[in-house]
């Protein structure tokens, strides 16, 4: 029997019962689209975390308060007890390793207000080294200087989107306009001394919506001393390993015990890919479960279809269909239903993932997940189609013809 003829026969049966075909397809559509969607969350998170870690630079270590902290635990304030990190630590480190760069980070959320325009933002207290240890670049204006820091000056450097939102206009125009203006942040008036180049998002945090202020100023305003982290950049003459060891030794001297954690980009990348890989695998597993449920739905409907079409199978056999012809006809049907469902699911899942506001939740549909979605739906169609198709093919023609 020529395959093309069998395919045509399968299609005519599929066309005959559109509602049932659609219903059995629905399980795969839901399964594949959720697979695509949730892996797009996983890959999106992975991408944004990895790219922001890479943006740190390979010569940077980060110091967190507490033993065995991570960026996440420090950010949400879960650190083990003991002496916290303070700005004094930063000053001490700067004194001891003068040609290295140390940028403290003390973050709080606030609003930023200019005339009638007001936006919520993240305020980060830091010092003049921030621009050296991170990828931030000034588009216009100047960096913080010693005066600003020592004198608790009410000056700020704002992200590109803050400038755009407060001083309507395109990137360059708004940056020009922002310079020298006074904005209200944390109940204080701050003079804009610089505007940053666009950066992109760091996970849920939009780096272009940050307001940077001197660390000393924010400490006074929010009455908080403890830093969330210190970003430290090794001097050119020191390897990252040696530098990390040196920072550790210095802090040990100051703190007495190891109540802090030092991590570098390498460790972060490893940790982050481990975490996001587990995340993605777990999400994929959930999606696969949904797909298997869809496959069982196909099997169920194919079995019902075989029972309903027993007589048709009998007729086909009586006029010369071999067992294999019947098997392939039903297998084509389930594979077609499943693959069509898979393709619709891929399109639907991709479409839905694009609907998510990317600043809130980054989504990424990778070619891998599209291929996985397609082939898994094909495999599911064949796997769950084999049993009903085999059952159909092995029907006794005499009994099948007698079936009412």
């Amino acid at each position, binding site marked *: *029997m*020529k395959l093309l*003829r069998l395919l045509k*026969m399968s299609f*005519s*049966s599929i*066309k*005959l019962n559109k509602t049932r075909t659609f219903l059995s397809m629905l399980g795969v559509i839901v399964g594949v689209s959720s697979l695509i969607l949730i892996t797009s969350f996983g890959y999106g998170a992975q991408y944004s975390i990895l790219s922001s870690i890479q943006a740190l630079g390979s010569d940077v270590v980060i110091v967190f308060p507490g033993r065995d902290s991570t960026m996440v635990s420090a950010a949400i304030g879960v650190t083990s007890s003991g002496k916290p990190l303070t700005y004094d630590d930063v000053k001490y480190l700067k004194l001891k390793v003068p040609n290295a760069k140390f940028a403290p980070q003390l973050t709080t959320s606030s609003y930023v207000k200019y005339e009638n325009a007001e936006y919520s933002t993240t305020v980060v207290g830091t010092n003049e080294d921030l621009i050296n240890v991170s990828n931030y670049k000034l588009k216009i204006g100047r960096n913080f200087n010693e005066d600003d820091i020592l004198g608790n000056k009410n000056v700020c450097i704002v992200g590109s989107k803050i400038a755009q939102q407060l001083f309507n206009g395109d990137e360059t125009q708004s940056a020009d306009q922002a310079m020298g203006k006074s904005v209200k942040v944390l109940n204080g008036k701050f003079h804009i001394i610089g505007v940053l180049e666009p950066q992109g998002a760091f996970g849920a945090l939009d780096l272009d919506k940050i307001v940077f202020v001197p660390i000393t100023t924010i400490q006074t305003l929010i009455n908080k001393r403890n830093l969330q982290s210190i970003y430290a950049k090794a001097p050119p003459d020191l390897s990252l390993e040696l530098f990390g060891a040196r920072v550790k030794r210095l802090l040990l001297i100051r703190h007495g015990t190891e109540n802090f954690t030092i991590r570098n980009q390498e460790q972060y990348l490893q940790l982050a890919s481990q975490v996001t890989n587990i995340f993605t695998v777990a999400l994929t597993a959930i999606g696969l479960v949904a797909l298997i449920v869809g496959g069982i739905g196909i099997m169920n409907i194919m079995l019902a279809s075989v029972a309903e079409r027993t*007589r*048709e199978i*009998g*007729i*086909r*056999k*009586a*006029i*010369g*269909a*071999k*067992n*294999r*012809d019947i098997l392939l006809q039903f297998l084509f049907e389930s594979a077609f239903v499943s693959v069509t469902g898979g393709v619709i699911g891929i399109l639907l899942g991709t479409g839905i993932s694009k609907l998510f506001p990317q600043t809130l939740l980054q989504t990424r549909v990778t070619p891998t997940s599209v291929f996985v979605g397609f082939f898994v739906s094909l495999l599911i169609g064949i796997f769950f189609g084999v049993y009903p198709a085999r059952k159909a093919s092995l029907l006794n*023609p*005499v009994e099948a*013809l007698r079936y009412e």
Partner: protein
Amino acid sequence: MGEIIRLENLTKTYYLDIIKVEAVRGVSLSVNVGELISIMGPSGSGKSTIMHLIGCLDKPTSGRYFLDGQDVSTLNDDKLAIIRNKKIGFVFQTFNLLPQINVVENVMLPALYDPQASLNEAKEKALNLLERVGLYERRMHLPNQLSGGERQRVAIARALINDPVILLADEPTGNLDSKTGLEIVKLLRSLNESENMTEIIVTHDPSITRFTERIVKIKDGLIESDERNPKMVELIGEVEE
């Protein structure tokens, strides 16, 4: 006239749960090319089982069956499927057309299962056969748009598409009124006369058997009688009902 079918002491035993049913208990029969035979018998006599054996839908328990010179009693499922496809044309009591495809597609269906058949030739042939059974105008209709008699004529056209050596009709008039049934029998008879088609009609209706030249009566799985029909009516000039 050559022999087309020879049954040698054919038996068929099957089990309904644990009850042993000896449906056919040793049947020998010889049919020549161009014969028109009716097989009669009450229900449960084994005539349907004999029909299934002759139609290669079922395998005998013992005995031998030669069709067109070939021993088909020991063939496997696939080979039997090929025999059914190429050498046998079936006509059923319930027509058994596929509801989802139209008349000409139904007629072509056996050709689709023949890998050597060309679809264009099959289509041309199907249209000729529909012309022959008087349904050319209705070739694009679906089976449920046809009357019972028309459906049976489509089924006859389908049975002939692969040039079978024998046509098997199982109660072909059972679902039809007597007038339509008579038309179907006349069609079968005219095919026998004009194309020399060997035909076996299973029936319990005496108004059909009078059109056949030989009547085989089955009882309790055995041939009770097998004789020429002395009262066979002629098609032409026969005006009845």
